[in-house]
């Protein structure tokens, strides 16, 4: 919402400076987004009189002008066709930057004649596109005076951000009213008395909407014999200052009412209206060529104004081209009405049509200001265009808006924390236009008709507090209920943070990527379900909720490789979406490693990343999360986006806790990612819940007896999972076997076809006495027998 300082002062009697007004507006909740003072930028440009204009001796189109700039006379070479002796123009001295071109003006010699400045056009001043000649100022413009002042451009323009609740401040007068309530001046009276009608309006209005709330009130006035034309300079200047284009006196008047008094109006060319006007619901298939030149297909539920030919205007949104005013218009029908905010908003949204009228109607307008608005507009039409007014045609009535809200004066203190004395509370509400009645312990407050947003006690508290000043509310410490803080995180939340830092400690770099991705990529990772598509994506490559974090990380790793950073190790802890329910959103720690374990180095040749690196990552994450990593089962049935023979699932009692492995080469190819690439996905919400049991650890038993290590190598089927052999070895004697380590896997020479050798170290830890050779031998025999039984393996010769 833009306005100028002088415009504001037409409504507000005040001695406050611009800075004071801006500061106060901000603290009233009317945020000032910018203040543009054009006078400052235009200060060097002054009024000048052309004393003489002689043809340039060496150029047909140029003239050598002597210009009186007040303190002296200077010579200027000018190419404008309208430069002539006696005219007044705008002089730009040497050393200034021309606003429209951004060029620094230098002293010059043009075809041998010295030029000490410039006479400028509107385009050069940045005022318009006009460049056919230099600006011509009125005869009486004082020579040497700042041009901005003469042109009325020295009026600072404020841009105020009006929040959706403050519909009343979508007019300059509403803003003035708030400032007056805040003690920054007094609101000037507004002349709204009725203009006597001289005849009955030949056009009638009938309210025929299904729901009378669609248009409860429609006032119309016929004005005969107007002369439309350009509006006067003061009106044009005002509209231009807030970025509107003056069109004609009749249109400019409606725009002025909109922005000055927040009262949108419509003017029909009465001669183009066929019969009476009917306010009704649109019928499916009806169309309207609107004033913006576009044709709209209307839907049921939209409120239209129709004549016998059909729809002529869309209530509260936009008028129609067929009945619009032109410079030839001589008879008009002025409309001032109330339209339902909800229907107006819906209509605008369905048609994707934003207008100044819609913006106001959908926020709610003052129901008592329809008539005054019409009277003010009538006066302006009569003043600017002449004509004879009819009586006001009234359809409907002002809807009931009065409501009483109970306010306990103490609520200002107990809710807003502001120590406002009760008399001050009453004063603030009264100046804002609220009616105050007594009702025992509380006040019975009636909001003014322009404050449809005020619905309850809390709203009243805000009104009092904001005018009193939020800056006067003392800050009070938020005291904790307990002397020491309780944990802010639940055990499960804390676990997520631990996993994150554990993965980073392993050298993986944390990324945060979007929750959406291209549907094609989602489909590769088990996603792409229709219920997880984005109906209105901002781009086609962000149109599906991600079923896995991996595609984002893989693509990111490739982006890094393309930038010359190979060997990315990235992870993310975040959501993946399996369906659109809250339970379908799962918390996952996922990571990828691409390329090699490290760059070439003299001390470490490095190796391509492999499945076991990903498995180690997954296990580290699970260990950090407190999962019983020693009790997990590994199965080789990974999801389809993994290499079927180089990936696995870590399970606890059948429950899938993590997946790890090499990515499927076909998937990498589709993602355009150069491998090798491995990945892991740890499902944090599948982990067993953290039990709130005793913090005490089990008693530590440290054996005083020497542990013993024995190595065994078994020849087993090449297909045998090593885990089977390790499990068998561990199970030989749970009290004695402290650890089983696989230290060699061998295929090939010396072994039969289809066999492999697995070599293990078994650590025995006796608890009661040092092991004797006989005991160790007995254990070894038992181990060999049990492993053979469990795996079919034989001790390697």
């Amino acid at each position, binding site marked *: 919402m833009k306005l100028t300082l002088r415009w504001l002062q037409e409504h507000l009697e005040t001695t406050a400076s611009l800075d004071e007004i801006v500061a106060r507006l*901000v*603290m009233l*909740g009317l945020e000032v987004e910018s203040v543009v003072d054009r006078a400052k930028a235009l200060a060097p440009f002054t009024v000048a009189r052309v004393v003489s204009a002689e043809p340039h001796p060496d150029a047909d189109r140029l003239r050598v002008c002597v210009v009186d700039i007040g303190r002296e006379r200077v010579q200027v070479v000018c190419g404008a066709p309208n430069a002539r002796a006696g005219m007044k123009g705008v002089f730009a001295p040497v050393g200034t930057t021309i606003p429209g071109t951004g060029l620094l003006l230098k002293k010059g010699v043009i075809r041998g004649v010295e030029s000490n400045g410039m006479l400028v056009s509107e385009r050069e001043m940045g005022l318009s596109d006009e460049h056919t000649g230099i600006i011509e100022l009125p005869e009486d413009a004082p020579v040497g005076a700042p041009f901005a002042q003469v042109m009325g451009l020295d009026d600072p323009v404020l841009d105020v951000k009006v929040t959706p*609740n403050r519909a009343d401040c979508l007019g300059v007068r509403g803003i003035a009213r708030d400032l007056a309530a805040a003690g920054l001046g007094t609101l000037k009276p507004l002349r709204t008395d009725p203009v006597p009608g001289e005849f009955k309006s030949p056009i009638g209005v009938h309210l025929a909407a299904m729901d009378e709330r669609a248009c409860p009130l429609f006032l119309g006035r016929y004005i005969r014999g107007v002369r439309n034309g350009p509006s006067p300079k003061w009106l044009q200047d005002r509209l231009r200052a807030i970025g509107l284009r003056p069109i004609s006196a009749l249109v400019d008047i409606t725009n002025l009412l909109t922005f000055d008094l927040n009262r949108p109006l419509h003017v029909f060319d009465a001669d183009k209206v066929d019969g009476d006007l009917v306010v009704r619901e649109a019928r499916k298939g009806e169309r309207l060529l609107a004033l913006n030149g576009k044709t709209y297909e209307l839907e049921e539920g939209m409120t239209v104004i129709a004549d016998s030919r059909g729809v002529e205007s869309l209530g509260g949104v936009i008028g129609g081209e067929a009945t619009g005013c032109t410079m030839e218009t001589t008879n008009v029908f002025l409309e001032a009405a109330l339209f339902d*905010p909800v229907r107006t*908003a*819906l209509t605008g949204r369905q048609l994707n049509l934003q207008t100044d009228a819609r913006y106001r109607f*959908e926020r709610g307008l003052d129901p008592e200001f329809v008539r005054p608005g019409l009277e003010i507009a009538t006066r302006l039409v009569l003043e600017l265009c002449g004509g004879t007014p009819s009586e006001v045609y009234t359809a409907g009535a002002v809807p009931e808006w009065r409501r009483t809200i109970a306010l306990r004066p103490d609520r200002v203190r*107990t*809710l*807003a*924390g*502001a120590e406002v004395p009760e008399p001050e509370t009453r004063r603030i509400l009264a100046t804002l236009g609220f009616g105050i009645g007594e009702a025992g312990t509380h006040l019975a407050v009636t909001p003014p008709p322009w404050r449809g947003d005020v619905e*309850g006690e*809390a709203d009243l*508290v805000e009104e009092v*507090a*904001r005018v009193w000043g*939020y800056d006067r*509310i*003392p*800050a*009070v410490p*938020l005291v*904790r*209920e307990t002397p020491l*803080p*309780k944990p802010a995180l*639940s055990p499960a939340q804390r676990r997520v*943070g631990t996993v*994150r*830092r*554990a993965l*980073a400690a*392993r*050298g993986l*770099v*944390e*990324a*945060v990527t*979007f*929750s*959406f991705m291209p549907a094609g990529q989602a489909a590769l990772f088990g996603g792409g379900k229709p219920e997880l*598509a*984005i109906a*209105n*994506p*901002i781009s086609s490559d962000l149109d599906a*909720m991600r079923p896995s974090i991996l595609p984002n990380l893989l693509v990111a*790793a490739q*982006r*890094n490789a393309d930038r010359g950073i190979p060997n990315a*190790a990235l992870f993310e*802890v975040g959501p993946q979406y399996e369906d*659109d329910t*809250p339970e379908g*959103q799962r918390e996952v720690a996922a990571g990828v490693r691409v390329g090699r374990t*490290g760059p070439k*180095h003299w001390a*470490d040749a490095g190796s391509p990343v492999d499945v076991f690196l990903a498995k180690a990552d997954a296990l580290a994450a699970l260990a950090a999360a407190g999962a019983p990593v020693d009790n997990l089962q590994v199965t080789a049935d990974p999801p389809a986006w993994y290499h079927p023979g180089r990936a696995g699932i870590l399970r606890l009692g059948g429950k899938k806790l993590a997946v790890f492995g090499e990515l499927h080469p076909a998937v990498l190819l589709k993602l355009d990612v150069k491998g090798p690439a491995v990945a892991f996905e740890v499902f944090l919400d599948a982990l067993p819940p953290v039990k709130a049991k005793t913090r005490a650890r089990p008693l530590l038993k440290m054996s005083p007896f020497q542990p013993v290590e024995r190595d065994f190598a078994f020849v087993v089927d090449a297909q045998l999972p090593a885990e089977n052999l390790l499990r068998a070895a561990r199970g030989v004697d749970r009290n004695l076997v402290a650890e089983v380590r696989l230290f060699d896997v061998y295929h090939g020479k010396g072994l039969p076809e289809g066999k492999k050798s697995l070599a293990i170290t078994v650590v025995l830890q006796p608890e009661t006495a040092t092991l004797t050779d006989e005991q160790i031998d007995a254990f070894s025999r038992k181990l060999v027998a049990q492993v053979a039984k469990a795996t079919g393996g034989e001790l390697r010769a």
Partner: protein
Amino acid sequence: MNDDLDKLRQDLLGQVRKAESLEALDEVRVGALGKKGRLTQLMRTLGQLEPEARKAFGAALNRVKDEIADAIEQATGRLRAAEIERRLEAERVDVTLPVKPEPQGRIHPISQATDELVAIFGEMGFEVAEGPHIEDDFYNFTALNIPPEHPARQEHDTFYLPERRDRTRKVLRTHTSPVQIRTMLNRKPPLRIIVPGRTFRADHDATHSPMFHQVEGLVIDRSTHMGHLKGCLEEFCRAFFDIDDLPLRFRPSYFPFTEPSAEVDIGCSRAGGELKLGNYGDWLEILGSGMVHPKVLQNCGYDPAEYQGFAFGMGIERIAMLKWGIPDLRTFYDSDLRWLRHYGFVPLEVPSMVGGLSR
């Protein structure tokens, strides 16, 4: 006889001197003092001597024996030192060789900022609450006092999921506020929660990302008012930005789910085109807040006559950018390793109020 002994002494001392290795020296020792050593042999002859001669010769022999043993010990020390010397020389390496690079993991600034938020608000008695990103219209809008035709809805740039059989559409939550509703519907007051998390708006330009992070705060009890909101946010901002005299400005504003509502600015300076936080007279908006709207309380089954409280919401990327001088919002989601290593945090820097937030 004495001459013979002296000759033997000279001979043995000579051998000791000449020994150039520990092995050679040991041979000398064995030859002199071993079971069959020359001095040992002589000792054995003592028994055949007359007592007088035995006493004199025994003493002389013992002196020689001690002297030789001493000499061997000294030589041993010398040879050991020399051998270590040789070994050290042989073991010399080029210590300027670069060490094996260890991969450096990093924590993303959003995670670090979130952990800092939790550390600060945790001290004030807040708990962390969470909620789904795919939301029902009810939680994201209606329960928050944003009915379908409310103009504020247009400002939310909502992402929608496809329309379902019952004609409803799920949305990607446009703010973390729906978790207010979910929490209040599930728990009884008093409440103090913060809700950090992902939020989504259909907007993408230099200062907007279709996904970003917010932290929501909610306090509900019988007496918390706007003065507490001020106190809480002042403490938070001063702690988070680590500026003791950071001024805050509360401006009246509008949010459908709070009444009264306030936008909060922090002090800054923009002198010379550089943004600097602190008590410098200029202001920078960082968050929205207010007292929870009575209708929102009612929608959650709380009696507004009995309970009240405040809520606030702020962008995590925004405060991270301000704190750490990160210039561009969009870079947060690029996963550019150069950026992550530069702006990321080492994993052991876990923020806490008593231990300090981030460096």
